[in-house]
């Protein structure tokens, strides 16, 4: 899953460089948004979705666990002394 998320981020970076819409003013998405702007608004939405996948499937849960373990260990030391 980590590889998929990294691939999606790279894909977003590639899709960001939309030279194919460079001169296009039309079509107007929803009747008012030039395609070049709509495309990049879509990139922002997609970045949010990829972020959702990243936190859902690749989140480093050990970061919170490590801190909790550390705190428990500290408390143990204090009690023992």
């Amino acid at each position: 899953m980590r590889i998929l998320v990294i691939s999606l981020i790279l894909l977003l970076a590639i899709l960001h460089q939309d030279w194919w819409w460079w001169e296009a003013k039309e079509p107007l998405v929803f009747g008012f948004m030039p395609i070049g702007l709509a495309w990049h608004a879509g990139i922002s939405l997609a970045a949010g979705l990829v972020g959702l996948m990243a936190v859902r499937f690749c989140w480093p849960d050990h970061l919170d666990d490590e801190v909790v373990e550390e705190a428990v260990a500290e408390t143990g030391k204090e009690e023992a002394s």
Partner: protein
Amino acid sequence: MSFTIILCYLSLLLFLGVFAGRLLKKSSGDFFLASRGIGPFMLLMSVFGTTMTAFALIGSTGKTFEFGIGVYGLMASWSGIIHAAIFFLIGAKVWALGKKHGYVTQLSYFRDRYQSDGLVLLLFPLVVCFVVLYLLIGVIGAGRFIEGVTPETFSESTAVTTVPLAAVPADLKIPADWQKRVTVKNGELSVSGSLHPKRKGLFMPLSKAPEWKKAVNELMKKAPRGAVPKPAGMAIVCLVVLFYVFFGGMRATAWANTMQTLVFMVMGLIAFYVITDALGGPVEASKKLLANEGKNSVMAREGLIGKWQFLTYCFIPLSVGMFPHLFQHWLTARKASNFKLTVVAHPICILITWVPCVLLGMWAFGILPDGTNPNAVLGMMVARYSGEVLAGLIGAGVLAAIMSSMDSQFLCLSSLFTNDIVSHHFSQKEISDEKKILLGRGFVVAIVLVCYLIGLSNTQSVFDLGVWCFTGFAGLFPILFAALYWKRSNKQGAIAGVLTLAVLETTGYLLSLGEHEGEFLILGMMPVAFIVTITTAVMVLVTLLTPPPNDEIVEKFFPAKN
């Protein structure tokens, strides 16, 4: 009216500062890091508010007016992707290290990771310089903005402005209720009191004679605007931010940021709705612009933005990773998983804030005259299509965007001075927590004062230099990334990287002073692309040519997973 609304908003922030101050525990951990107890929503709002300045509202509209819709891809969608990746890869990891080892600032982490006071002493002036520049843009911007949105706040009834009028036009009719203030006699036009620029629209139709138009134009240039002067506006904003940071520390900053972020997002949307409605709806506005052959170039990117510039702009958002004020916000989170919401929602918040402003800037290009000052575009659209109440509310929104970055920067500079310089270098014994808070507050006052005084002096050079502060932070990013993810990285490599950045940054700035059209580019690319690449290369090379860090450090920062 606008000024009254702005004052009401600022009073609300003062109240918030008092309230947060009452909850302040007497510990430096609470003053500088809100006891590391910030939840997911406040973290999102703090981080988003801190990364977005007034540029998100005024700059985005103005830049679109100048360079077309490509501005969104250039600045906003790159930021959406890269900021989110940084929060995921850097933010959560920094938080865990901060919590584990008790770091309060970015520099304390670097000192510990590289075991080098020299590196910190090298980084300190650079980081302070970049933050102060960033801060100054906010302080001066706030002063200018308040001055711009508060005409006729002071009537200046004693002031009389007189301009020559070749002959009294035959068709001229001065309304009866104006006659106390407006006098036309013997080839001159006199007006008492201050004049709002909008009054031009009322004066002009009074006569069709060309000499009248000329006299009115002259009058509008000469008459006092009666606005809150820039130094006073700067002072008001500085004092309000100083007040709530001084009394409430990071807790007040996080609360204020949450409120301010919501305010500027909502106000941006309201401005968009009202103006769009006045233009006959978004579809009608875009259709009109598309049909206008001379003006519709802003609906695409050709001829306005270079393709390599568009690509290499991706290096600029890396600066967020090295913003010391953002680093400090990361440390305030209650737990690492609180970053999840920020990672997901940050690009969406950018979308919500930027798309309406970019559309307004695009439509404005078809409406406002050529040569309009880009920074005045949003204000002019608001003035043209809405009333004073909305202008005041949007003014509050813009100030919210400015202050939500300023407060974190003031607090962060104070933390750097207190924790990394005074506590570390000048104290033989451990400084008590109460003294640290006292020192922190003292530094906040000193920094605010210094920024205010610089802001009063040569302002344009500050704006010219401002662009380079983002480049500088981005150039330092590889050092942070290596510190977090490369076991082999050592202090020699980091120091070499910082020195390289300092040299390249200075060279780049000096080169940019020469003559060039539009944005300063090298081979059509952003200078930051070269700076980040060269800094990284030097850091890696020097690291590989010098001894690796000792095992103790590697074990501390890269513990073996069980």
